[in-house]
Every structure is written in C-alpha cells, then in structure tokens.
C-alpha cells in the first residue's frame, strides 16, 4: 500500500492549536493508512481499531511537538507502529510465541500450496515476525529503525525477518527448501 498523503500546512497549524475540525480532518486523512498498518501488524481487527484510537489520541496530545520536519504521515506512522508494537509486547507477556511456532509448524505439514493466500500466510506468522515483515518490506523501515522501536538488536530484527520469510515460503508452498 503506497501512501502519498499530503495535508495543507494551514490545517496542521490549526490542529496544533486544538481546533477540533482540523483535528478531525487529520483523522479522516490518516485513518485508513493507520488502521491498515495496525491491522497488518496485529492479529485481530479489534486490536487494530484500538491502536487507531490510541494513535490519534497521541496525535491530538502531541501535534504541537510536530515541527514539520519530514512528512506528517511519517510522524503519525511512527506513533502507530510504536502503539502496535507495544500491544504485541503486552500480548507476549500473556502468551509466549511458542504457541505461534506450533501453529505455523502444524500448517507447514499440510499441502496447502497455493490455496493459502498471502494474507492468511501472514496471519500464521508469529506476532513479532508479522510486524517485522510489514515494517521492513512494506513500510520501508530499516532493521536499525525496527530494532530501536522494538528495543531489540539489529540482528534480532534480521533474524525475525528471515524466519518469517522462511515460514511464508513454506506456507505458500514455493519450490525447494532453503537453508
């Protein structure tokens, strides 16, 4: 999903002063990409909606700190990604990723081949793996940036990406085994 959103500077200026109409206009402009990012990173729609709400509450609270350096979408996206990653971390406290590994391994034994589409294959990844794939491959974050957001090392981000792609490849039934 390519995002090329631009909003007038005057709208941002009004939003900075707390103008509700301007804030709503920002919400309407970025609602879809924020939700899409969260939904692609997270396992369920409810969590993605919560991230959408949390993201805009933070945007409203902190829009005054946005200095106009870089695209506004980049600033909002950073907030949304951080919120989604925080939610993943909270979930991991409750359920370890061992469960996800087992789920994925179970499916890998089936000859699902082309029957599973990419979206379903993504859903079968671990929460962390899915988030890293989306942030790196689609949103264009570097491993350094992902590592910083996750509070992990660069090698952690790289290994998560490799593991996730190995699983995707296996789930989607591509040719030979790699590695």
């Amino acid at each position, binding site marked *: *999903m*390519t995002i090329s959103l631009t909003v007038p500077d005057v709208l941002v*200026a*009004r*939003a*900075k*002063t*707390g*103008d*509700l*109409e*301007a*804030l*709503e206009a920002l*919400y*309407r402009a970025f*609602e*879809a*990409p924020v*939700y*899409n990012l969260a*939904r*692609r990173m997270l396992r369920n*729609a409810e969590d*993605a*909606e919560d991230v*959408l*709400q949390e993201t*805009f*509450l933070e945007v*409203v609270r902190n829009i005054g700190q946005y200095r106009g350096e870089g695209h506004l979408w980049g600033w909002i996206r950073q907030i949304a990604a951080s919120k989604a990653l925080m939610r993943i971390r909270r979930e991991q406290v409750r359920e370890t990723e061992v469960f996800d590994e087992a789920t994925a391994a179970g499916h890998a034994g089936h000859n699902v081949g082309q029957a599973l589409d*990419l*979206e379903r294959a*993504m859903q079968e990844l671990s929460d962390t793996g899915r988030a890293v*794939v*989306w942030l790196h*491959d*689609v949103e264009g974050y570097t491993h350094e940036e992902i590592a910083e957001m996750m509070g992990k090392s660069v090698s952690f981000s*790289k*290994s998560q*990406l*490799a*593991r996730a*792609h*190995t699983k*995707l*490849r296996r789930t*989607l039934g*591509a*040719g*030979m085994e*790699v*590695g």
Partner: protein
Amino acid sequence: MMHCTMDDLLALQAGEASGWARKHLETCAVCRAELETLYQRVAQLKALPGLRAPRDRWPAVRAVVLAGRDRRRRVWSVGSLAAAAVLAGLLLVRPWGTDLEAQLVQAQQRSATLESTLQQVGGDGRVMSGREAALASALEDRIAAIDGQLAERQAKELEALNLWRQRADLMQQLVQVRVTRANYVGL
C-alpha cells in the same frame, strides 16, 4: 551443493550479501529462482489491498479531547467560585480602607459582568479558527491561575485588587474572542 539460506537471500535483496552468496547466485539457477520468489512475495505484500476500520473511532477520540477540556473548565469554575467566596469574606472583614474597598468591588463587579456576558455568548468547544481556540484556551488558563491564587490564600488588599483587575482584563479579552467568533459565524 550448498544453497543460499534465507539470510543470504535477504542480504542479496538488500545488496549486502557476502562474496560467496553473490558468486553462488551467478551459477545456481535454483537460488536465482528463490531470490525472484522473494522479490515477488515482497511485491505482493506491497500490493495487498488497504484495509479500513469497520467502525469510526473519531467520536471516541473527540469525546476524550472534549472531556479533557471540560475538566479544565470545571477547574476554572471551581476556582472562580472559591475566589468569589474569598472576596465575600474580605468584604465582610473589611481589612482595608474605603477607597481600596470601592476599587476592589468595582473590579469584582466588572469581572462578574463580563463572566455573565461570556455565559450568554456561550462556548461549546467549537471554534472557527485554531488561533481563536488557542487564545481562548490561554486566557482561560490565566484566569484559572488567578482564581487559584485568590482561592488559596487571603490576598492582601493591594494584591487582591491587582489580581481582580487582572482577572477582569483577561475576562474582557476572553469575551472579545468569543464575541468575535459568535459574530463571525453569524450567531
């Protein structure tokens, strides 16, 4: 024959592959196919349709924002009442001379009149411009701060007079902001 690992393929994709991986790719059709599959998979990910939230979350965000503003207004109102109570006490005790007393009452009456005007103009949190909203918000904060000072301690006569005058001036500015807005929207 040893093939590229997924790490190698991702490194090749990123242009950071080892010399071995780059050389191997030149001679191994299998790994070239794997790399092509990886490129295609990433392209397919990027091409996935955008998802939209099933429910509109703006009303919830707006409610939280307005609740925060209401909270600030309530603090202001409570402060205003407390300040009035302190003034009533001061008037009862009359710790100052008649001239100062008269000026204080005058400042307090001016402030009360302007406050009444402000209530008639109304303020539902919706403004025509962000600049007006920011100005009104800043004025409300300053008035609340003065009310706090009047409520927290029994101000000395001159200090009380100054505070009430400041309050009335700020209230005057606030009325101007609100009235300007009301006129602008044709109310």
